[in-house]
């Protein structure tokens, strides 16, 4: 099915069309399940003034952190950005804007963006700085705030296995934000570890149906560990 073949030949092709000032939604939690090579391609490409939507901003020198080195990011929308000295420096210098968003609200904003829901009410953040300036409404006697959804010009996603139609499966907790990110990009680009034939993935066990995927490439991954914690073998 030629029309459904999402595979592209190079990372340059994968990120073709990314322009300065665009919004990029990225999957991943910490350094787990991040689209390492798509991020590297954005660095190579040198796009600037980006708004990046991701739970975290990587660490110094790895993950989304590398986009800070050449000041490519104008704004981050994240729930936690505490692992990154360069981030702190640019934030304090006023070179970087940050919109802190509760983690669950961030996940739901991406999902809503992909699902045609422009806004939803949530109790999260009511009465806190996150709720300031947002509409408050009571349901069943409890106050909630109105949060708007997020869509990206691009979404960059890391999956484990994929077929050429773009059907995806994630591995362990590397799933995290990736499925929602995949739905919320005008152009969704995925890098996978392993290409399988259509039909190899059990249809009811596909995490992301191919309809959400525009481009796909097979990559190899460093998978750096942020907090290496081990116990002695018995």
């Amino acid at each position, binding site marked *: 099915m030629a029309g459904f073949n999402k595979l592209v030949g190079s990372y340059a092709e994968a990120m073709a069309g990314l322009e300065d000032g665009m919004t990029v939604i990225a999957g991943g939690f910490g350094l787990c399940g991040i689209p390492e090579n798509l991020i590297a391609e954005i660095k190579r490409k040198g796009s600037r003034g980006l708004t990046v939507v991701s739970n975290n901003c990587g660490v110094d020198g790895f993950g989304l952190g590398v986009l800070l080195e050449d000041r490519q990011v104008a704004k981050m929308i994240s*729930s936690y950005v505490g692992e990154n000295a360069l981030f702190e420096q640019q934030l304090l210098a006023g070179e970087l804007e940050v919109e802190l968003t*509760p*983690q*669950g609200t961030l*996940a739901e904003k991406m999902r809503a963006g992909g699902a045609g829901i422009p806004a939803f009410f949530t109790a999260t953040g009511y009465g*806190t*700085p*996150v709720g300031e300036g947002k509409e408050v409404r009571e349901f069943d006697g409890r106050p909630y705030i109105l949060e708007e959804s997020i869509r990206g010009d691009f979404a960059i996603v890391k999956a484990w296995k994929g077929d050429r139609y773009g059907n995806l499966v994630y591995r*362990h907790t590397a799933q995290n934000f990736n499925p929602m990110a995949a739905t919320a990009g005008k152009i969704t680009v995925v890098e996978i570890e392993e290409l399988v034939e259509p039909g190899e993935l059990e249809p009811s066990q596909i995490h992301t149906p191919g309809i959400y995927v525009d481009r796909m490439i097979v990559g190899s991954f460093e*998978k750096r560990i942020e907090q290496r914690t081990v116990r002695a073998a018995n």
Partner: protein
Amino acid sequence: MSLSREQLAMRVARELQDGYYVNLGIGIPTLVANYVPAGMNVMLQSENGLLGMGQFPTEAELDADMINAGKQTVTAVKGASIFSSAESFAMIRGGHVDLTVLGAFEVDVMGNIASWMIPGKLIKGMGGAMDLVAGADNIVVTMTHASKHGESKLLPQCSLPLTGAGCIKKVVTDLAYVEIADGKFWLKERAPGISVDEIVAKTAGELVVPEVVPEMEF
């Protein structure tokens, strides 16, 4: 004597019940997992998308794709499930987690909690804390009763930016176990050897003290 970190965790662990799904925050809350009473089973939820978090992996089990919300490498117990962040927070925000334990900078008599931001210092972000306190019905805050400089953390009104409003009912400090209701703190238990007077002196918000305040036993 004021409670040690381990004793704090032990006291919090008494809030567990068999069959509870529990989310433990970073720090002392994490230690609670070590004091689950014998014969009782709880399942740990980690908000990055894991229900049934197990112990740290051995070198042989180590897997970069298997982490917890603290970004530590972990394992999964038999019967665990793994899912997306949206599903994970649907669980949390939908009130399906039975108990949430987290640290705080301050709580107040209205059940407000401040735990994520100290203006002037760098703002790291709230992570999942705002979702956890808004979504859970049953939250235990654990922290020291007062700062190193002796300033109470149990206040008439939080001074720092809030994590959540009106959501905290139980606080375990190094000096006492305190409940929050009707705009007041209610002293329920004191740490071994800690006098009611000391607790009263270190509680800035209105504190209701019963005639008898049982001493915690360990």
